[in-house]
């Protein structure tokens, strides 16, 4: 039986041959988001997993803080922080097998890092020395995707291809609440369901698309309620409860792996910082709202669970923090080094082989750069400057790096 033949065999039939439609109930999410921490379900959770999640959350928070600091120092062009959303970012990375694929959006560098990517490579896009700073095939992390929701059909296609090949690979695609309004979201979920592709969609509903609150984005009971319209299950989860996100994603992935097809997971969370460093969130939300969410901090939630259950003590917390600091120090140090750039790279990867036209343009730029070097050599002060090493451009005005 081919992959394609596994689809339900709908045939247009007139009444009385009409079948009652598939029962939609199992596809609908619960009324309230699923929670584990602080509930009886936490007892069933694997302590090692909880500790790993905790360590990664702390690292993640530190990573976000460090990246934001680097932005202030002009070392990054822009940084869209995931502070407050670390539970989603981290659980998404940890729940996958090595052979699986992650499709992050532009806000998800943390998830890519938690999956094992070099943090400096993950930040290349935002530093501005190249677009994608890593080989997607190495850790099976697709490029951080800026055109919203466009990565979702990619995840579907990859998962479908893997299934066609008979490989046991699941794709997990991340998208924001705002991104669900795009046509590509719709088309991706529909293809996934029709093809029963092994893909899981995680919507991080952080309440805003830049300044636009969810109420202007959708009138649906929840974003997870969109799932039934594609014929896949929709799940709602507390996005600040790392154990719950991990559990719900884990079930969805297992379902996909078993040939059950895609799942849509909505994680309810909150963006604690501005959209990016260039954004001014005072314009569109009240401090009180942000403060209210502080009481539901993903790290605090997990820390409380672990300490109350005696799975973590002061020493353990200190060790985790020290590890995070070491990561941050390393990141800081490496990001403080200027990247070495070769302007000729502009022409290297447009096509497999540059066209004659591009070769001409390459020669033109090379001649210009040679002339620049000669010019520098004439001025003794500059003789020691590295060639073609450019710093980030000068910027002014609000939001020039808004993404």
């Amino acid at each position: 039986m081919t992959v394609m033949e596994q689809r339900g065999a709908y045939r247009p039939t007139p009444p009385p041959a009409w079948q009652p439609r598939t029962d939609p109930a199992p596809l609908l999410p619960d009324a309230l988001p699923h929670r584990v921490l602080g509930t009886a379900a936490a007892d069933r959770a694997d302590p090692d997993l909880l500790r790993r999640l905790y360590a990664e959350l702390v690292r993640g928070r530190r990573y976000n803080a460090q990246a934001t600091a680097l932005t202030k120092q002009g070392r990054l062009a822009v940084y869209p922080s995931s502070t407050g959303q670390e539970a989603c970012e981290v659980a998404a990375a940890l729940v996958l097998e090595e052979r699986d694929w992650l499709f992050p959006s532009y806000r998800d560098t943390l998830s890519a890092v938690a999956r094992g990517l070099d943090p400096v490579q993950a930040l290349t896009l935002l530093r501005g020395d190249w677009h994608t700073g890593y080989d997607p095939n190495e850790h099976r992390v697709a490029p951080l995707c800026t055109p919203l929701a466009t990565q979702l059909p990619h995840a579907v296609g990859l998962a479908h291809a893997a299934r066609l090949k008979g490989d046991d690979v699941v794709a997990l695609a991340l998208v924001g609440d705002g991104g669900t309004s795009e046509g590509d979201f719709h088309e991706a979920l529909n293809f996934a369901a029709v093809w029963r592709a092994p893909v899981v969609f995680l919507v991080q509903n952080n309440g805003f698309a830049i300044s636009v609150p969810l109420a202007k984005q959708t009138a649906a009971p929840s974003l997870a309620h969109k799932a039934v319209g594609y014929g896949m299950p929709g799940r709602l989860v507390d996005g600040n409860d790392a154990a719950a996100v991990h559990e719900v994603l884990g079930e969805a992935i297992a379902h996909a792996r078993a040939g059950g097809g895609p799942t849509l997971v909505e994680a309810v969370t909150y963006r604690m910082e501005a959209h990016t460093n260039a954004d001014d969130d005072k314009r569109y939300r009240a401090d009180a709202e942000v403060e209210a969410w502080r009481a539901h901090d993903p790290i605090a939630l997990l820390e409380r669970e672990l300490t109350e259950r005696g799975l973590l003590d002061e020493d353990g917390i200190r060790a985790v923090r020290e590890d995070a600091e070491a990561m941050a120090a390393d990141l800081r140090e490496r990001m403080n080094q200027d990247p070495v750039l070769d302007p000729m790279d502009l022409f290297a990867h447009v096509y497999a082989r540059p066209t004659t036209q591009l070769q001409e343009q390459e020669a033109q730029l090379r001649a210009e750069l040679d002339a620049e070097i000669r010019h520098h050599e004439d001025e003794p002060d500059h003789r020691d400057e590295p060639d073609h090493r450019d710093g980030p451009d000068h910027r002014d005005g609000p939001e020039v790096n808004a993404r």
Partner: protein
Amino acid sequence: MTTVAVKPATMAQALGRALRDALAEDPTVHVMGEDVGALGGVFRVTDGLAKEFGEDRVTDTALAEAGILGTAVGMAMYGLRPVVEMQFDAFAYPAFEQLISHVAKMRNRTRGATPLPITVRVPYGGGIGGVEHHSDSSEAYYMATPGLHVVTPATVADAYGLLRAAIASDDPVVVLEPKRLYWSKDSWNPDEPQAVEPIGRAVVRRRGRSATLITYGPSVPVCLEAAEAARAEGWDLEVVDLRSLVPFDDETVAASVRRTGRAVVVHESGGFGGPGGEIAARVTERCFHHLEAPVLRVAGFDIPYPPPMLERHHLPGVDRILDAVARLQWEAQS
């Protein structure tokens, strides 16, 4: 040009003022897009408008560009004048089908019964250190689409004048706003705004006799700088700012080139298949026997827009323009 300069204003402010004046004068004008409300747009062009005119007139939409432009079509069918903001150049692409198959064609499809007075504002071009997909020069796509007008300001006054003209037009107009000029300042009196400019007129920004630089939008200041620098080489360059890519002001451009006998087209957009080909071809058709040298083009390379740290190598700068001027076969000078 006759305005009394009171204080310098930025292009972003002038655009905002144009929207405000249009909203105030004409109750059918509606501003819509992502983040145009409380935030005032990511470039703050719509700052304060939602407060002044209310959410029904200045509307934060859901995040879906085809939906924004598609609903604008329906609103225009009912007699409104929607002004749509696309947040960045590359994020207008999801709306491409609505733009090409409906916005550009509706008047024609209906023999004039259903004109669509829609303005589509698109911040475009690079030079601001934006990460990928935030610096595309997409004008070639719009130019190749009959039924659209395409304008792009290079000065604060034109930003006001062209946007007002676009909103007043009974035809759809794509207003390409050069991102890196948003904070450029001019002496411009916001309380006596420049008259609405008719769409379709180029302007000579600098008179010169040796050769003509034909340019628009973000490359206008670069060309003016190049023209200054060229004096040292003994060249007296004329600079024509097209302002409107569609319709194209053949008269002004051809008159200049006939006078100078040499021309270079300058733009940020990739050269191949970019606006420069059309412009060079038109000029050559009209001025062939006045030309001492082929019309040359200085454009972005034929590559995806580079990352921030490399963009300066891509963007046409003064040196590259002067190099092209130097290649205008001066030895042939009579």
